[in-house]
């Protein structure tokens, strides 16, 4: 059973009488444990596809099964629950809460996790250790570097032990060194069995994945494994 099973997925944006098709019917499977890069120029529909796969948006046509369940039937609360428990997001702009410590930012998804009685602090510490930020727990988010911010965001995505992590241009706002450290962490997570779906417009970044799906004008124009996979530098940006 595929983790994600998409058949003829469509998304139209309707603005008054004007209907703009953004996704014109894409079909693919993604299995658990894969590291997939969705690549395409801006306006190609790659971000829209990621939003649908990450339950931030709904398709207007086609079929999307997640872990064997048809997602068409899910209501808003169920979507919120899946976003909370089964997926994690890493955004280009980090999207950390201001005036809040690193530790509290990472705890945020746990706050919305009803039912599960976990030691929130222990779980957040563990996630921060996985991204090499154990020494920044009590720092405020305006006191750390961009690379560290993105690693906090990865820890936040990890903390609920999701089935898949979506990374939307995670290195877009970073210098190459910090970006390398972020890609290294994503590759390490994938090596440990985590499914990663990366959205990018740069081939260089996409080649860190194991498989590249190319999107152009709302259609899947290529889907193949990466032949010469790039491995991010082992040298981590832990200085400071």
């Amino acid at each position, binding site marked *: 059973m595929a983790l994600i099973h998409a058949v003829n997925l469509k998304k139209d944006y309707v603005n008054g009488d004007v209907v703009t098709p953004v996704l014109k019917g894409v079909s693919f499977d993604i299995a658990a444990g894969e590291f997939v890069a969705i690549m395409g120029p801006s306006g190609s529909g790659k971000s829209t596809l990621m939003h649908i796969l990450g339950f*931030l948006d709904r398709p207007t046509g086609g079929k999307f099964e997640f872990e064997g369940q048809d997602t068409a039937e899910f209501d808003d*609360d169920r979507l919120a629950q899946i976003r*909370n428990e089964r997926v994690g*997001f890493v*955004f280009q702009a980090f*999207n950390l809460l201001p005036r*809040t410590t690193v530790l509290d930012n990472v705890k945020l998804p746990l706050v*919305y996790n009803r039912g599960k009685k976990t030691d929130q602090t222990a779980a957040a510490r563990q996630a921060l250790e996985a991204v090499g930020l154990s020494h920044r727990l009590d720092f405020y988010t305006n006191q750390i570097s961009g690379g560290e911010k993105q690693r906090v965001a990865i820890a936040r995505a990890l903390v609920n032990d999701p089935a898949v992590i979506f990374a939307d241009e995670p290195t877009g706002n970073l210098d190459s060194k910090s970006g390398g450290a972020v890609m290294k962490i994503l590759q390490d997570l994938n090596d440990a069995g985590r499914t990663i779906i990366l959205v990018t417009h740069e081939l260089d970044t996409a080649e860190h994945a194991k498989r590249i799906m190319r999107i152009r004008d709302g259609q899947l124009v290529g889907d193949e494994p990466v032949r010469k996979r790039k491995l991010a530098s082992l040298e981590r940006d832990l200085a400071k």
Partner: protein
Amino acid sequence: MNFIAELKMIAKGLLARKGRSFLTILGIVIGVAGVIIIISLGAGAQSLVLGQVTKLGSNLLSVQPGKSNEKGPPAQAFGIVVTSLTTADADALRDPGRVPHAAALNALVRGTTTVTWGSRTIDTNFVGTDSYYSQVINFNMAEGQFFGQQEGEGNANVVVLGSSVADSLFGNSGVDPVGQIIKVKAASQTEAGGVPLRIIGVVEKRGSSFFQDQDDQIFLPLAIGQQQLLGIHYLQAINIKVDSADHVSQTIDDVTSVLRQQHHVKTNTDVDFTVRNIADAVSLLTTITNALSLFLTAMAAIALVVGGVGILNIMLVTVAERTREIGLRKAVGATNKAVRNQFLFEAATVTFLGGIVGIIVGAVISFLASLLMHKLGYDWAFVISPLSVVLAAGVSVLTGVIFGLYPAFKAAKLNPIDALRYE
């Protein structure tokens, strides 16, 4: 949602925008402080009125010339001079066969006067009355005595001073007022001179009652007041002390029938006098203060609504400013309900804080008002009822919830991607 963590977040947010937070809660502070002050002053006024009733005695009747509506003000209040009440009426009412429960009765006239002792001159009020005054009204003498029957009815040239009049005339002169001669003339009289009167007593400090300073007046025999100061022959009022509260209504009937005979009144429309009792006056006063506090409460409620609109406004701005944060919270699993509750809780917390500040401000102002009233000589109690505090706190939270609803629903309805993309 973790309650403490949420409170900390809100506190940080509020502190990060101190000026705006202050303006946000200002309306609530004013409204709540208003409610607290009004309720406190209302309770203070009530205790004052009740205290004065017990001081005067609730079984006191007052006969005034002129017909007037029971609940309305007396005819004199409109500047109408009614001359129908006379000393003969007072004498008729003193007949124990006709008004059996009248324990004591005094006739009186009032006016303003200028009093001179040596080089000192002051303006004050005078009461021209008979010796029975001291039996009708409860008070004590600081020194000397009130005029007796002989002096009162004999138009002796004697006078009794209120305590503040004695202080103004004789204070730090080292002279004992009793035995001194003062000159008394009507305030309207411009030429020098006046009636020389010998001081025979000073009344102990009484404070104010019914918004009149009881110490800033002098007492002199009725006929002197009528003839030499006012130049009139009629009475302005007759006070009657009833022997017990149970006989008040019967005595009102007795007084009415005696006066109708005296004045040859045949039909009700011809009645030219009014009998009032203190209890009625109190209920009139209570009606007025209640109406006033209702009005002021309405004003405070308007302030609260205006404060609520302020909250609505600021919460909408906050939701717009934090669109990205809302998107993020939804992306990591916040349900619509969780987002809605977060903003409702925030609005309620802000208004609750405003309520607390308002309660403190209101209590301080009420306390200062009570100090002022004490300074003015009123027996004013400082009362903050726990109920008013609970009410004010509850209303402020409710205001936050009501006016926070729309922004909170707006936040909850935000689409997570639109929210994340918002710049």
